[in-house]
């Protein structure tokens, strides 16, 4: 049963990722990416990481993708990929090279996997992850707020209309 759900979710994830890179329309790509992020959230649930699954849906599929769709709507893209591609040869080489990279990575994972996994995986509940974040990772956690503030100020500076 777990295998069936894993393979169904994995097929959805891979298919939506392929849709993202193959569909010419950027809005379709954004919607495919939402599907992909949602299926990865389902995989987090299967791995027992409930807090991360919720954060994935809220932060990625919610906030980040809204930002993407908004930017796509503002920029109205779609015309830049029409017309002759001046670097078509280089882009065609990317496909076999990417396939080779995928085979290599999967081979390394599958061939080098040794030993049994931990008897019982840790609970990824919000309480457990929160306790870890506020004890061992307290300093990086506080630094995250500085990072977000810096990003916010930087975006305001970039988006300001120059006089």
């Amino acid at each position, binding site marked *: 049963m777990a295998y069936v759900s894993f393979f169904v979710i994995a097929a959805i994830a*891979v298919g939506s*990722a392929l849709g*993202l890179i193959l569909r010419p329309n950027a809005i379709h790509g954004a919607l495919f990416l939402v599907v992909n992020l949602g299926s*990865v959230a389902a995989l987090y649930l299967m791995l027992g990481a409930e807090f991360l699954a919720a954060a994935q849906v809220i932060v990625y599929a919610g906030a980040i993708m809204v930002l*993407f769709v908004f*930017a796509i709507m503002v920029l109205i893209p779609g015309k830049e990929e029409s017309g002759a591609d001046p670097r078509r040869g280089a882009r065609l080489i990317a496909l076999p090279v990417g396939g080779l990279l995928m085979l290599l990575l999967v081979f390394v994972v*599958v061939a080098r996997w040794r030993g049994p996994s931990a008897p019982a995986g840790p609970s990824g509940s919000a309480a457990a992850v929160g306790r870890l974040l506020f004890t061992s990772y307290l300093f990086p956690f506080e630094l*995250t707020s500085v990072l977000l503030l810096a990003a916010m100020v930087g975006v305001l500076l970039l*988006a300001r209309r120059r006089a």
Partner: protein
Amino acid sequence: MVPESYYVALSAVLFSIGVVGVVIRRNPLVIFMSIELMLNAANLALVAFGQRFGNLDGQAVVFFVMAVAAAEVAVGLAIIVTIFRVRRRLSVDDLSVMRW
């Protein structure tokens, strides 16, 4: 229980798809979304490894990756919008110099 190596293999597949997307597309927004795909694949691998070794540190790191990704998307999209405002078009092949 599905072994963790399946999740890591899936994450490798998703990462490779993201790499190909970055290389073959000309629209910077789609390239950016492919980068998000790669970040997400790395997150999946982190969670799977954390589960395999029986500790929560992988999940804490994924939390930080999400925060950094949010900041990165905000700044990156602002840069793309600024480039579009100056250039009036949007193709990565035009952006071969670091100044204009």
